[in-house]
């Protein structure tokens, strides 16, 4: 328990790891926007050709997957780690997909089963597959960010990016400090929870039997002391910070200054290229998607 690396940072000295956290955060945000731009099937149904949708969205996904794959390889993070990140949403995705298959209206003549509100159609199936891939990609991208960036770099990056908000009196520095202290305290809290748990067990507390409610109730004797000791900890930390001349953001400088390097430029260009190609397939720039779809039709 004590050796938890909070977050899921995978240490390595790759180019991706050494990129500026701010750039990585911006890229991740753009990546999410891109996935939101991927259309659902409804927009294509008016045009009538189902194949156009499959080709356009399929090509977009392939571009994004290739991008993720390349970043993973460059960053030297084991691909399995990236894949594992979808574990937490797998239930949600399956649930969404099933619902989409069962209840998607479907206007065309590709209806396989219809009874009451349940309506299984080809469009429904394609739509739900696209949705599932989209959700998986939505999780995998940002998890690559946390795999290659330490929590400290992340909070520093967020602080730096939010700096403009200082103009409207948002306490950016304080928020970032709170985040980094919270991260700092996680291992201590886990250790402490462990200790309290052992102490309660030594006095015959039972945490492992009974139904969910009983177990939740059994956690109470751990949570209350943990809460109290966190307050005491916070109090002492405040004294220590005061004593080390802390005055908030006023007059404070940093030891490590974030500087953009050539690798950040390359990273951005690489992402921008991927972004553009994906948009090209989504919005049918230069008729690429249509041409591809026509080609597919003629082959069939």
């Amino acid at each position: 328990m004590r050796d938890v690396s909070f977050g899921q940072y995978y240490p390595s000295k790759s180019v991706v790891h050494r990129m500026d956290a701010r750039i990585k955060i911006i890229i991740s945000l753009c990546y999410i926007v891109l996935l939101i731009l991927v259309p659902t099937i409804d927009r294509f149904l008016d045009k009538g050709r189902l194949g156009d949708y499959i080709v356009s969205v399929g090509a977009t996904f392939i571009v994004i997957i290739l991008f993720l794959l390349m970043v993973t390889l460059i960053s030297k993070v084991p691909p399995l780690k990236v894949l594992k990140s979808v574990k937490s949403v797998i239930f949600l995705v399956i649930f969404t997909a099933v619902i989409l298959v069962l209840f998607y209206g479907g206007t065309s003549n590709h209806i396989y089963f219809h009874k009451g509100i349940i309506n299984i159609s080809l469009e429904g199936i394609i739509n739900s597959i696209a949705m599932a891939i989209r959700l998986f990609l939505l999780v995998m991208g940002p998890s690559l960010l946390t795999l290659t960036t330490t929590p400290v770099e992340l909070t520093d990056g967020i602080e730096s990016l939010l700096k403009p908000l200082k103009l409207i009196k948002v306490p950016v520095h304080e928020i970032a400090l709170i985040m980094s202290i919270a991260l700092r305290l996680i291992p201590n809290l886990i250790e402490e929870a462990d200790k309290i748990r052992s102490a309660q067990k030594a006095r015959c507390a039972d945490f492992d039997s009974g139904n969910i409610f009983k177990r939740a109730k059994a956690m109470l004797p751990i949570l209350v002391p943990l809460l109290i000791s966190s307050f005491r900890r916070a109090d002492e930390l405040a004294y220590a910070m005061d004593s080390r001349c802390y005055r908030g953001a006023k007059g404070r400088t940093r030891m490590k200054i974030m500087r953009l390097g050539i690798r950040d430029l390359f990273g951005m260009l690489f992402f921008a290229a991927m972004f553009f190609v994906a948009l090209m397939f989504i919005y049918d720039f230069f008729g690429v998607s249509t041409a591809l779809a026509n080609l597919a039709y003629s082959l069939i």
Partner: protein
Amino acid sequence: MSFIEFDNVSYSYSAGTKNEVKAVKNVSFSIEKGELVALVGHNGSGKSTIAKLMNGLLLPQSGLVKVNGLDTADKKNLFDIRKSVGIVFQNPDNQMVATIIEDDVAFGPENLGLDPKEIRERVDFALKSVGMYEYREDAPFRLSGGQKQRIAIAGVLAICPEAMVLDESTSMLDPTGKKEIMEVVTRLNREKGMTVIMITHFMEEAALCDKIIVMNDGSVALSGGRQTLYDDRLVELGLKLPMSCSVAKRLNKSGMNVGEVYTPEQLAEAICRSL
């Protein structure tokens, strides 16, 4: 003018309520620059409160605390006072701000608003002074208690204070950790001339200091040089003497004159001499 002056200082927790606890009562003493002072006493004798009064973390309810002639009660002075008096607390885990050691040590100088280059120099200097330079890029939670406490000392050192207060900083450490800290602290005092105030209830540590202030129930019971350890009133206050002092005392009483010794080595030497 002394470096740190306590003039008739009193402080109570929860003042004005029925839970009022008088922690410090009319305490006066002064500490000169470059001294290595031990502040000893039982739990609840007001030692830690005195530490917090020293750099304005707590303000006296009556009386005056002055550092370099600056009154801690004046808010404008606090920044300068804290620059010259740093405190290392009991639990190293509760003093760390950052997840990486060098970032944590940099916290103080960053607050001073120094140039990044100078911050880097100070951090390197502080980490080298406590012998933790090789660990600078590690996470603190993998270190031993003694190592963590050395990081906390480095965090204070990086501010370059004139005085360092160690508030029971060795009490949570094992004997090796205690020794590590004592070595670092005495070296800083001898070599860099730093004023060090050790707050402790281990009389062995007090025996290494030049000056001893004994607190009892919120007041100064005794104070003086190292020979205070041979004052009989110390035993009356129920404080346990360092082993070497109590042995020497009994030997002296039984007619074998070993004089006043403070460490086991000195004791051994004195016994050899008198044989």
